[in-house]
């Protein structure tokens, strides 16, 4: 075991930190420009094999990037596009997926995985969205919700039920019959609800195959969960930093409120919650290459604990900031909002505990 980043990782962490903090300092900056910055720094290709046009980064590298992203409250949908949809494309392989991946890495096309459907909570493996193939192409009907990273230019990867099992279809958002509603997320970003009504796409738009798709998607989602855990750790770390700063500055009854023991102990509890979350994130990342059953349990356990830490740290940070923490202007509230979204993303605490328990651990 060795938790020290090597020289290359230190460089990577330092440069992404600089970039993300720059982006954060200009919140209204052009998202297209920011996406180009990601590409130029090699982040879009980071997690992909060199054979696939990527940079051959390891899961550990992604973890460092996502911690920095979390600390800086990154706005561009890098995790959804590159770390979830992108990795699914790489794992699926085949010409359609490879071409899409190449465009994604080049920054010329965005992809997003349409995982969830109305009324099914976090279940994605038995979609109500149905697809039929008539030889020439696919006809797709159904609804998807909460597609992060999607806009009207995106290629949506849609799981759909067919008689042969779970298909994965690449549907450009502009396809006729696809209606998209862009809605605000609780942390002020955008996500799409999507309806397909007899949307027609060519036969070649299929990626993966019914036999492998559930396993491919599960692996991609687990990777994205580990990345979300790292993002949460980064966000919690910064939020604790903001809180400690505030405790040192804010005065009441003639002294800095950071001198009150009850508040000191709360901050210590936040620190412990974050350190335990960081450890579970490390565990999840270390297990991403393990056999699927072990990987899934490790990732679910990690998300459950990171979620619990996040809810505690987020709520207590607001508490320790007092009224200031409730204002939209002060950054603490935005971190709390982001953490709230990330807790929900890919399954809340109860969902992941259920997975751990069903596995008999």
């Amino acid at each position, binding site marked *: 075991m060795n938790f020290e980043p090597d020289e290359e990782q230190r460089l990577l962490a330092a440069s992404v930190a600089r970039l993300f903090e720059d982006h954060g300092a200009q919140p209204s900056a052009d998202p297209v420009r920011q996406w180009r910055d990601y590409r130029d720094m090699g982040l879009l290709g980071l997690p992909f094999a060199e054979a696939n046009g990527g940079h051959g980064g390891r899961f550990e590298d992604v973890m460092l990037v996502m911690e920095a992203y979390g600390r800086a409250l990154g706005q561009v949908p890098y995790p959804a596009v590159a770390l979830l949809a992108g990795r699914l494309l790489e794992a699926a392989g085949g010409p359609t997926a490879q071409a899409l991946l190449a465009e994604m890495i080049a920054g010329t096309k965005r992809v997003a995985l349409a995982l*969830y459907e*109305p009324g099914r*909570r*976090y279940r994605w493996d038995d979609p109500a969205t149905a697809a039929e193939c008539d030889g020439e192409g696919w006809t797709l009907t159904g609804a998807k*919700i*909460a597609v*992060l990273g999607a806009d009207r230019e995106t290629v949506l990867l849609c799981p759909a039920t067919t008689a042969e099992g779970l298909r994965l279809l690449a549907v450009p958002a502009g396809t006729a019959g696809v209606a998209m509603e862009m*809605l*605000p*997320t*609780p*942390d*002020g*970003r955008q*996500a*799409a*609800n999507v309806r397909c009504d007899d949307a027609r796409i060519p036969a070649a738009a299929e990626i993966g195959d019914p036999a492998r798709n559930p396993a491919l998607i599960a692996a991609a989602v687990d990777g994205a969960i580990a990345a979300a855990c790292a993002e949460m750790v980064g966000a919690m770390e910064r939020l604790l930093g903001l809180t400690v700063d505030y405790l040192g500055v804010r*005065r*009441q*009854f003639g002294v800095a409120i950071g001198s*009150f023991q*009850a*508040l000191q102990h709360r901050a210590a509890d936040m620190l412990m919650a974050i350190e335990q979350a960081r450890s579970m994130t490390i565990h999840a990342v270390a297990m991403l290459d393990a056999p699927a059953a072990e990987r899934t349990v490790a990732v679910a356990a990690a998300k459950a604990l990171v979620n619990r830490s996040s*809810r505690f740290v987020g*709520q207590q940070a*607001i*508490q320790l900031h*007092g*009224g200031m*923490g*409730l*204002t*939209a*202007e002060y950054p603490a*509230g*935005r971190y*709390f*909002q982001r953490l*709230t*979204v990330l807790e*929900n*993303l890919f399954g*809340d605490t*109860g969902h992941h*505990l*259920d997975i751990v328990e069903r596995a008999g651990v």
Partner: protein
Amino acid sequence: MELGFTEDERRFRAEVRRTLIEQVPERIRQAVREEKPLPRAWMVEAQRILNRNGYAVPHWPIAWGGRDWSAVKRAILAEEIDRAGVPKPLPFNVALIGPVIAAFGSEAQKRRFLPPIANLDLWFCQGFSEPGAGSDLASLRMAAVREGDHYRVSGQKIWTTYAHKADWIFCLVRTGQGGRKHEGISFLLIDLRTPGIEIRPIRTIDGYHHLNEVFFDDVRVPVENLVGEEGKGWDYARYLLGQERTSMGNVGFSRRRLDRVRELAGPLLDDPGYRRRLTWAEIELKALEITQMRVVANERPPSAGPDPKTSILKVKGGELLQTAAGLLLDALGPEALTAGFPQAAAEEPFQGHDARSALVSAYFSSRKYSIFGGANEIQRNILAKAVLGLGKAA
């Protein structure tokens, strides 16, 4: 000892419930149940209905519209109002400024203010907190300098709920220096239309606009708007804080939220983990209901200041509202991910947010229950010192 509700109390509850459901329009109660902010006009409409039934100010002197109901009955009333989704009578009016005017105001002030306060013809907001004087209220700095028949008032108030909807503000102001920090504080009523007052919104993480900063730049306030004696403001504020606590635990509100959890959670109600969280919340609520009644039944003269045990209601009641908000949020599942709200929410009337957004807002906004009105840390200080007698020697 009579540990359960009496027959008379049960009848009273049933009657209140029936009256509220019959008289308060469903559109209002529905919006409240859905946690949507209400247009000002709806709040006024609801309070006038309550007032007509004697439900707005039962704790006031009978001469000014009060009723001779026991504290337990008043607590039942408060619980039923919340539970039915009827907006509470505006607390700044009925629970805070009204009793202060009734106790310390001049006859002219009583005649001028009490009836419209009860009926929400006049809307008051509360000007206590200042930047740097939140929990440590005695360090407030907003100054009122007497000049003939006026005060000239300058300074700033903050966290002022509904200042943008209000007609008047009651303020603690500094009229004298020296001595201990809480000496030289006076209690002023100020018409918000007076020149020199500026109200700036504070946007909050729930996406709404409830809170404001209020700036006073050389504002002329007639001396007749001073409540009681100059320099006695701290005493009146203490009296005010000792007022009607019959809904301090927010029992009816939590009941309404947990009912909503059951409506919305669907299959989650069969999830053992979620179910257990809800079970604990239900049990906590039952305990709180009785704790509330125990504190309420222990009636004290208002001059004794707040019963320190109300701190239990404040802490536990707030935590329960927060727990219920968390259950609502988690009930949404991934649907919450598209249930955000515009960064600067539109003004009233409420529109543009669906039911889901209102719940996400409620989750964020519920953090306030452990912050405003004396943060939970302050409440625990009070319990440790005033109830347990700890730390006095140190």
